C-alpha cells in the first residue's frame, strides 16, 4: 500500500512538495502582505490547571505566546494551551512537553485545525477588517495572542513577527479552513495580497 498522503483543508493552486506525509504548496511569492497555509503544522491542545505542574512548566500566560525550542506555545484559554510546531513533529512535541498530565488533557489536534500565517506591513489593515479586537501594532504586540471572532469564526490569533515584519498565526477549525482562507484573500485584494507556500522555517 502506498504511503498515505495528508492534505490541508485548503486547496493548493500550483505546485506542491511533500513534507513528511503532508502535501504542501511550495510557492515563494512575496508582497506587501502574504498568506501562507501552514495547516500541516503540528498542533497540540493542552488543558491543565494553571497552577498544576504542567501549567506552570509551560510558562506561558493566557493571551501570550512563548517559544520552547521550535515550538510556539500559545496561551489560548484560561488553563488551555495550543502548542504549534513544524509539520510531522507530533510525537516529539508531546514528548518534550514539560510537566505531567494531571487533571486536564492533551489532544493532538493537528488534523482538527487550519493554520494560516498572514505577514506584511499591511497585515494589520487586513486584520482590522476581519475582527473587532484592537490589533494596532502597539495594542497587540509581538508575542500576544487572543481568541475571538475572526471573519465570524472562533479563531486563535497569535502575533509572531518574522524578521521584524508583523506576522500573525490564525488558527481555526479545519472544516472552515477554505472559507477562512478565501475570506482573507478577498479582504486582502486591495492590499495586493499574495499566496505564498509553506514556510521553510516550518511554521
Amino acid at each position, binding site marked *: 500500500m502506498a504511503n498515505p498522503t495528508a492534505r490541508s483543508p485548503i486547496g493548493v493552486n500550483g505546485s506542491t512538495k511533500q513534507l513528511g506525509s503532508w502535501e504542501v504548496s511550495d510557492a515563494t511569492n512575496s508582497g506587501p502582505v502574504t498568506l501562507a497555509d501552514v495547516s500541516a503544522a503540528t498542533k497540540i491542545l493542552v488543558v491543565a490547571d494553571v497552577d498544576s505542574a504542567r501549567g506552570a512548566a509551560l510558562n506561558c500566560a*493566557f493571551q501570550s505566546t512563548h517559544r520552547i525550542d521550535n515550538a510556539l506555545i500559545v496561551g489560548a*484559554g*484560561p488553563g488551555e494551551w495550543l502548542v504549534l510546531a513544524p509539520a510531522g513533529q507530533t510525537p516529539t512535541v508531546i514528548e518534550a512537553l514539560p510537566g505531567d498530565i494531571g487533571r486536564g488533557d492533551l489532544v493532538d489536534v493537528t488534523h482538527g485545525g487550519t493554520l494560516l500565517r498572514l505577514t506584511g506591513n499591511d497585515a494589520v489593515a487586513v486584520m482590522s477588517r476581519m475582527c*473587532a479586537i484592537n490589533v494596532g501594532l502597539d495594542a497587540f504586540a509581538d508575542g500576544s495572542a487572543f*481568541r475571538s471572532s475572526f471573519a465570524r469564526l472562533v479563531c486563535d490569533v497569535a502575533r509572531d513577527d518574522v524578521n521584524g515584519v508583523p506576522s500573525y498565526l490564525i488558527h481555526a477549525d479545519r472544516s472552515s479552513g477554505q472559507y477562512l482562507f478565501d475570506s482573507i484573500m478577498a479582504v486582502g485584494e486591495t492590499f495586493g495580497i499574495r499566496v505564498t507556500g509553506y514556510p521553510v522555517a516550518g511554521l
Partner: protein
Amino acid sequence: MILIPCPNCGPRNSSEFTYEGENKERPNAATVTKAQWRNYLYLKNNPLGWTTETWYHSSGCKKFLVAERHTMTNEIRSTKALGQQGGAS
C-alpha cells in the same frame, strides 16, 4: 454593542457571548413537585434595573460568567468568572 468585561479575556463585544439569562437553582429531582419544577423551568426574574445573569463566552475563553447588568441602560457593573472570587468591573 454592549461591551462585556470578561474576567478572563478583558472587555469584549457582546456578540462573542451567548446570553444564558438568570441561572436558577435546580430543585431536587427526586422530591420536586410539578409546581416547583415548572417554576424552575419557566418563571424567571424580569427586573427593570440591575439583574444578575449568566453569559457564555462562546467565541472567547469558552467560560461561563456571571454579570450584573442594568436592563434599562445595559451598563455592566461587575462580571465574575464562575467559581472564582472577586472579578473585573
